[in-house]
């Protein structure tokens, strides 16, 4: 990145709005520094537990960030996607079913991603093509996915082989603190990490990313310079569905290794929260996902260690309460604006 591109990048993101060292940015950097220091301190104090928590963090974050990126591409194009939960569930179902029938995890992933694409296309067809209200379209996906996966759920089916296993990335995996958490992971986690970085660059710097921002902010303006708004929205929402599909495959074939009814357990909604919290940038969403994953893992660790003698129900509130507090506090430091055309169907005149 050249220095000159800096400000341009910030405005291009469409959400930053403020350039340079805004209080917002200073707070996040300060927060990050404190966090790293704390983690390091804990690692020195109890390596095994810190590794366990960090591992749990990355694990929970992976699914969330995939869903968040799916939501983000849609929202940046002006389409709200509250059907991520349904996309997760449906593609977890097909990924598992195909993997178990074919005996190939890879084919399962392909099936999961394809299902995600298909559901993305359905969302696009409803909200872009038919100009159905986007929230309804997403809700349709959610209800239909829950119903269909339960209806066709096959009782006896099992994967018939181990789920995706961790791959050590050579010496990187031996690094202290982050070694296990980041560099001894199963393949889809690596893939997700790569996607986060690639998508971040693409969204903020590529022609595609800029046009996507344009159709989400001012589709009319985009149309007057010859961008086919409908087409690009179709493509984006469909492709974004592939990310959620990957998330579903990750859930069924890497994180869990089986399928059960309603196994996404609300994580598609959490992904939405992560996306907004992460200010609709992939890296931001990953940070938010890690934060959320961290509170989840920490909550598990508190219980494992009997750290506090308080009921599980209260420990279990931790991630949610912390998220509310952080979202509210972040709001006080600088509000985020939604893409201007978000939620509004675009009609060619």
């Amino acid at each position, binding site marked *: 990145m050249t220095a000159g591109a800096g400000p341009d990048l910030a405005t291009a993101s469409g959400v930053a709005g403020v350039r340079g060292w805004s209080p917002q940015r200073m707070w996040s950097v300060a927060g990050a520094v404190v966090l790293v220091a704390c983690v390091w301190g804990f690692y020195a104090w109890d390596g095994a537990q810190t590794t366990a928590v960090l591992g749990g963090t990355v694990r929970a974050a992976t699914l969330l960030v995939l869903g968040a990126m799916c939501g983000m591409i849609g929202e940046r194009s002006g389409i709200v996607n509250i059907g991520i939960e349904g996309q997760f569930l449906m593609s977890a179902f097909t990924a598992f079913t195909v993997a178990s029938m074919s005996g190939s995890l890879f084919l399962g992933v392909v099936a999961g991603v394809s299902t995600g694409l298909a559901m993305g296309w359905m969302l696009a067809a409803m909200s872009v093509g038919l100009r159905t209200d986007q929230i309804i379209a997403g809700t349709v996906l959610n209800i239909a996915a829950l119903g269909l996966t339960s209806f066709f759920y096959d009782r006896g089916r099992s994967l018939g082989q181990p789920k995706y296993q961790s791959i050590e990335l050579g010496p990187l995996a031996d690094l202290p603190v982050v070694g296990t958490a980041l560099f001894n992971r199963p393949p889809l986690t690596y893939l997700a990490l790569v996607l986060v970085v690639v998508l971040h660059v693409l969204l903020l710097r590529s022609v595609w990313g800029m046009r996507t921002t344009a159709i989400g902010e001012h589709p009319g303006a985009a149309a007057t310079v010859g961008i086919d708004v409908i087409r690009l929205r179709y493509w984006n929402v469909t492709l974004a569905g592939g990310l959620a599909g990957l998330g579903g495959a990750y859930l069924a074939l890497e994180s869990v290794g089986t399928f059960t009814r309603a196994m996404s357990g609300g994580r598609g*909604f959490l992904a939405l*929260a992560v996306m907004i919290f992460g200010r609709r940038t992939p890296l931001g969403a990953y940070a938010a996902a890690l934060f959320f994953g961290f509170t989840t893992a920490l909550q598990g660790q508190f219980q494992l260690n009997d750290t506090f003698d308080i009921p599980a129900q209260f420990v*279990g509130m931790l991630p949610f309460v912390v998220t509310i507090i952080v979202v509210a506090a972040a709001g006080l430091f600088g509000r985020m604006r939604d893409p201007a055309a978000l939620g509004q169907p675009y009609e060619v005149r």
Partner: protein
Amino acid sequence: MASVVLGLLLGAVLIAVQGHSVSSAYSALVLGGAGDADALLRTLQKATPLVFGGLAVAFAFKAGLFNIGGQGQLLVGAAFAAGVGFGLEGVPLVVHLPLALLVGAAAGAAWGAIAGVLKATSGAHEVIVTIMLNFVAGNLTDWLAANPWQDRSGSNIIARTPLVQPSAEIPTWGWLPAGFVLAVIAAFACWFILERTTYGFEVRSVGANRHAARYAGISVGCIMASTMAVAGLLAGLGGAIESLGVDGRFEAGVNVGLGFEGITIALLARTNPIAVIPAGLLVGLMEAGAAKMQFESGVAPEIIDVIQALILLFVAAPLIVRWLLRLRDRPDAPDRRLTLGAGWGR
């Protein structure tokens, strides 16, 4: 109406594909939902929280807010109403029942107001906050039912409160549960408030054009906070009626998903408070009849979800219906497309 028919038709195709008899499935569904007084009672009982949940979503939509928090608001309403219902003894019905309902409604309102106040003061997105609050409410009420308020009588090991006192029970008149009457009243009240009062004018203004509302002297923050409180109140009331009129107590885990269905209902009703009543009845009927359908024809009850999704899709996209029914596009046909997205996109 065409949407409902189409949804049922496609559902029939699925049932047939699975090798079951469509006619026996659907007749069992209807008989199970309205075949006799008992079935009707169950349908109305099921419709009650759906109507309240639908109102909670629809009302917030009018101010441009997307309330995904119906579930949490309903849970706290149900738990606190039950708390008052069993906790107070020797109070006459005319005091006890209204008090229990009021406390449930207030608990829901408070829960909803959290999201509204945060949105107004810090801009925290109500969608995030209400989703998080659902989880928190689930945990909180589970804990209440398993700990301080647990029924310690006899051999009970279940995480639930004692039965509410008779003085706090909502009566049922034959096949007509009083709770459903309250739901209908609430729907009309919502319509009246929105269309006929200055407060409703303010709510709708904030939803339609926030800037103009501010110009018009409306305090946007106050309206957001109060709208979410009203939405929470409605959901909380639905929960209270569930505890006092259907379950007779609060039990961890039995109100699962009731609040979320409000979103479906509100959408089916196109956020029109009055239309929420038939929407709630339709879904209530299908849910009440699902068990009989499985029992008589072996069709898994999940088919109901699929049919609901299809109906919703057809309601939302009249274009599909027209295409499917090969209706000619009349040029002067009003555009009945439903839009709610504004609630999110700002």
